[in-house]
């Protein structure tokens, strides 16, 4: 079904990433020289996870006659913001810097992408917000980037990848979550791989569609990592947003973690209540793609009942990725109340910075409310 009223908050939108040469003005002299002299500026930084011509990467009617899908603000307004009457959309720029092994180069490019995003997108379209791209494989550099960008309150979340260097719950990464908590930022994990490990426990699949399907299992592994390592215990206000993760795999994970925990809880004594409760409180998932069977209209209602919470789902179009046709971004059969929560209430609860930002648009540099939120 269509979005029934105005004011939705789209929690996953993908503007085309800038070319490397477009990032040159956002780099310092050293990195500009590096990119130019090494011809790095001639490469695209396209991620293997999102081949540009693949059907999943862009809906046919959202492709442009020339240029990349979602490659200009007019297209984003016309195709993604206006049709769904979104008051706010969170941009996730999926840049290949995250797959570089050189941590300093990755950090420099992440900074450039964030600054480009602020200037080229956020400054020009007040409905847009963004995630902070960070080189997670070096938590020091990632924290530095969060500290640098956080004063701009249009950045509402820190962006990580589902398949990366190490499982993200590990203590090594905790400074990132501490910085996010301090600044009232959610932690977002987006589908995608650095391919620093094989995508599966038995190696490298042959087909791209297999890699894509495996993303949901990578999200499962990350949830187990956050849970067992005690991240939610350490950072009680943390919201972990799974973006483009799929949704319908979640009930089994809730059941299984709660059951296994009863047998192994001495190993993870900081988990002091059933994991399903902890996960329902801290974890959020974006709507698209919603993997449901075609011919079973009851499957969605049953699955939502199995999930056992109406606070976990966040509206997303995943524009321009192709998961639905026309304007039917919402599944049929949701109650009015569920739709309202999905479109507005849940995103507002998840992203503290949207609560002050929605009406006013831009209040760049106002850092005073942040610490209050962190201790909330």
């Amino acid at each position, binding site marked *: 079904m269509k979005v029934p009223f105005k004011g939705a908050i789209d929690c996953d939108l993908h503007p085309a990433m800038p070319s490397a040469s477009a990032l040159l003005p956002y780099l310092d002299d050293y990195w500009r020289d590096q990119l130019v002299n090494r011809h790095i500026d001639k490469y695209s930084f396209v991620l293997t996870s999102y081949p540009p011509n693949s059907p999943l990467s862009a809906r046919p009617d959202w492709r442009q006659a020339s240029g990349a899908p979602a490659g200009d603000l007019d297209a984003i307004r016309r195709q993604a913001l206006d049709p769904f009457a979104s008051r706010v959309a969170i941009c996730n720029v999926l840049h290949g810097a995250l797959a570089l092994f050189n941590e300093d180069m990755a950090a420099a490019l992440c900074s450039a992408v964030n600054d480009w995003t602020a200037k080229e997108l956020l400054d020009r379209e007040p409905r847009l917000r963004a995630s902070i791209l960070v080189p997670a494989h070096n938590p020091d550099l990632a924290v530095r980037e969060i500290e640098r960008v956080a004063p701009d309150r249009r950045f509402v979340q820190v962006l990580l990848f589902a398949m990366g260097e190490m499982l993200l719950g590990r203590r090594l990464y905790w400074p990132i979550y501490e910085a996010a908590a301090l600044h009232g930022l959610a932690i977002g994990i987006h589908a995608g791989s650095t391919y620093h*490990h094989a995508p599966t426990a038995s190696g490298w699949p042959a087909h791209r569609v297999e890699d894509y399907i495996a993303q949901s299992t990578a999200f499962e592994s990350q949830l187990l*990592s956050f849970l067992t390592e005690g991240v939610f215990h350490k950072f009680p206000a943390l919201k972990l947003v799974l973006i483009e993760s799929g949704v319908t795999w979640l009930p089994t994970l809730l059941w*299984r973690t*709660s059951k296994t925990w009863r047998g192994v809880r001495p190993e993870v004594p900081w988990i002091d209540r059933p994991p399903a409760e902890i996960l329902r409180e801290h974890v959020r998932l974006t709507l698209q793609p919603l993997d449901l069977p075609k011919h079973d209209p009851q499957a969605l209602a049953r699955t939502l009942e199995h999930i056992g919470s109406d606070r976990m789902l966040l509206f997303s179009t995943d524009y321009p990725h192709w998961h639905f046709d026309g304007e039917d971004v919402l599944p049929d059969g949701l109650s009015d109340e569920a739709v309202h929560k999905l479109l507005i209430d849940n995103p507002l609860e998840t992203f503290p910075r949207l609560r002050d930002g929605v009406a006013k648009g831009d209040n760049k540099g106002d850092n005073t409310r942040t610490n209050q939120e962190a201790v909330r």
Partner: protein
Amino acid sequence: MNVPLRHAPASAGLAIVDCDIHPAYRSPKDLYPFLPARWQEHMTTFGEHLRQGLSGQLAWPRMMAAGMRVDSFPEQGPPGSDLALMRSQHLDANGVEYGMLMQLSRGGMEERNLEFAAALSRAVNDWQLATFVEPEPRLRAGIVVPQEDAAFAVTEIERRAADPRFAQILISPRSSDPLGHRRYWPIYEAAQRCSRPIALHVQGFSGGHASTASGWPTYYMQEHYAATTGMQNTLTSLVFEGVFERFPDLKVVLIEGGFAWAPALCWRMDKHWERMRKEVPHLRRPPSEYVRAQCWFTTQPIEEPETPAHLADVIGWLGWDRLMFSTDYPHWDFDHPQHVFKFQLTEAQKAKVFRDNAKALYGLQ
């Protein structure tokens, strides 16, 4: 603590098929009568050569009693090594009409030296017969083969094919490449030819890759869970590489890797197959149809939703004819046939899950 968990007879007087029972050696020397002298010496001198950092123990120590039921230790040897105790504690007590043996360790599935792997698997197959199946006709062996040496695996499958005491073929889902890859197809061809299902039981040893796409987990709780993500990836590979399309009579049993994820995985595979089908034109049907026609799942460790009846939704989606009861005896997370389901099954559902599905699949009378 060596007390039986329950004294009650098996579920509602139903004779059951247990699709996952683990036999064990009293000591590795139990295998020596079945190993050529050259490999006995190799085993003594060098031992197994695996893809992990610890020798002779698991890198994620189990939570209790080395991962065993604390009441399952015989006077001598490890749990599962004493047939008399297995009979009294499990087969008799729980009304097991047939039990499927899952020999995991030292079967060569995870051995890096493929010649040694071949010798081990041949020895393990002889040992299963001599130690368990000959003295206890309720038990059925599995043909253990090292999947990384498909040519040898085929030889071993053919060698055992005429013996009905071997019910299925065991290979590791933690393979060195995803199991759909062509290098494994001779195994599926042989399985189809000799009408044996392929049994995929979760494995504690790596085939060379971390258990998650972001590397190694920290805790056993994660590694335990990773069995289900790995099994999903393995099933995805079998589907999309076209194994089921190419071998339409092949049957695959997914053991101890969970089953509740399967309907959602099928929805996900179908949806994205539709979008990406030009990449995999060799698939002529939606992925879910191959799974529905050619895959079976075992119950243990059963899911326990807060609202128990939610599991009935999932089994309905999966198909009541595709789920087979298993206990995992003598492991710590054993499921008892009387207590495994927390919601009411109909008599027909009980008969299928506890007995008839397995009998039909394995051709048991």
